[in-house]
């Protein structure tokens, strides 16, 4: 479904992505791990077209989405994104956050959008918070709203960019649980995370990145139980100990 071919991204003279190639099939949960600064987030941001790659291709169902003629808004409707810092709209209620794009992009009627939004918020366990404002929610609740907001556009895949990193430890689980449910329902997911337990349990594939390159990739159990590359081994030893 998503195929990345030899992707490079430079910020000034710094190479953040150094020739990344990968493939994600429908229903895959691809977990991307690696030290900070290894280019994981930049990779996700390129897929969502928030960053423009310096060279290389990103194919969505065979179509190169880095091309000039591509309607970026259409691509982003098909690939949702959830951010580390939530980025909820603080001036709107929870239901307002979830339904804004439904009304403005998909031109849904308010009542119809509200029904769809309520269903999604029920799914992430926040039905009783629909009229609350983001600043009245805990971090975990905010992130679940952000997931519902991304789901509202009915995307074919969702990118998760370190979505639990800004959360207090006791709030991490409620967000991971929602993500596990999503994975079970067959959603295609690309997950950058430091939650190794989640990676191992939910990930269908795992990629280890360092210095803008994919160092090792494989099935979750292979990478975690039997890393081949010394750098993967060193990283896993450091984060798991």
């Amino acid at each position, binding site marked *: 479904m998503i195929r990345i071919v030899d992707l490079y991204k430079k910020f000034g003279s710094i190479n953040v992505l150094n020739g990344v190639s990968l493939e994600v099939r429908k229903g895959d949960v691809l977990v991307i791990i690696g030290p900070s600064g290894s280019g994981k987030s930049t990779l996700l941001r390129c897929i*969502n077209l*928030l960053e423009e790659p310096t060279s290389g291709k990103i194919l969505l169902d065979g179509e190169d989405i880095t091309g000039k003629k591509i309607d*970026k*808004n*259409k691509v*982003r*409707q098909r690939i*949702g*994104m959830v*951010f580390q*810092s939530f*980025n*909820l*709209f*603080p*001036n709107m209620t929870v239901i307002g956050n979830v339904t*804004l*794009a439904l009304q*403005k*992009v998909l031109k849904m009627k308010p009542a119809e959008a509200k029904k769809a939004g309520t269903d999604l918020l029920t799914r992430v366990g926040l039905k009783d918070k629909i009229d609350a404002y983001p*600043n009245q929610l805990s971090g975990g609740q905010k992130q679940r709203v*952000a997931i519902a*907001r*991304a789901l*509202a*556009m009915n995307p074919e895949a969702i990118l998760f960019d370190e979505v639990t990193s800004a959360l207090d430890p006791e709030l991490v689980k409620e967000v991971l649980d929602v993500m596990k449910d999503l994975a079970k329902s067959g959603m295609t997911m690309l997950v950058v995370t430091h939650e190794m337990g989640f990676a191992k349990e939910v990930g269908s594939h795992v990629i280890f990145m360092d210095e803008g390159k994919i160092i090792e990739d494989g099935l979750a159990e292979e990478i975690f139980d039997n890393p081949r590359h010394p750098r993967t081994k060193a990283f896993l030893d450091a984060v798991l100990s």
Partner: protein
Amino acid sequence: MEGLADLAQKYFSVSVIKEVFPFLLKGALYTIIFSASSELIGIIVGLFTAIIRVTKVKVLSQIATIYVDIFRGTPLLMQIIFVYYALPYVGINLPAPAAGIVALSINSGAYVSEIFRAGIESIDKGQIEAARSLGMSYAQAMRYVVIPQTMKRVLPPLTNEFVALIKDSSLLSVIAISELLRTSKEMMTWKLNPSSLTAAALLYLAITVPLTRLVSYLENKMKKGDV
């Protein structure tokens, strides 16, 4: 002591103030009408030019920047004189009230543009990214996500700007508009007593003090995170 009595008689004569007050009220009304309508036009001009500047539309954004530089960098008095006395030579003949509103509006628009630009740039980049990741266009993200949040943040500086504009509108007296200051000067010549100036000052305060109080109220509310 004689000095104080003179001062009271010249500047604080209750009988004179009572007599000129109805005229001054009319002047105050003009001051409010001129500054409020100019502020309104200024907000539209300022918002528009601010958006052009932050989106960095080529040429247009340079023109907008030049506009802001010129009208923030020269005295308002000079701008009023140009609009009223110089524009007729290129065929633009505006009656004094129209010239006054044009001059005040473009001047306030330049300041408001800066206020909006700073406001828009203070909104976290993640807001636009979140909106765009949902498939919204840049224009939609600005309109539905960024600008509404900016409006709340710019309310205090915008109100401050309005207070400044109310006082600056007294400069319209040079093109014979009978706003508050000019009226009070006319009253002074009529009564041969400057107490009307004191009365005008009180009227200015009656307009501006509630507005400055509103600013502190809004700022306090923001600090508490209600806005």
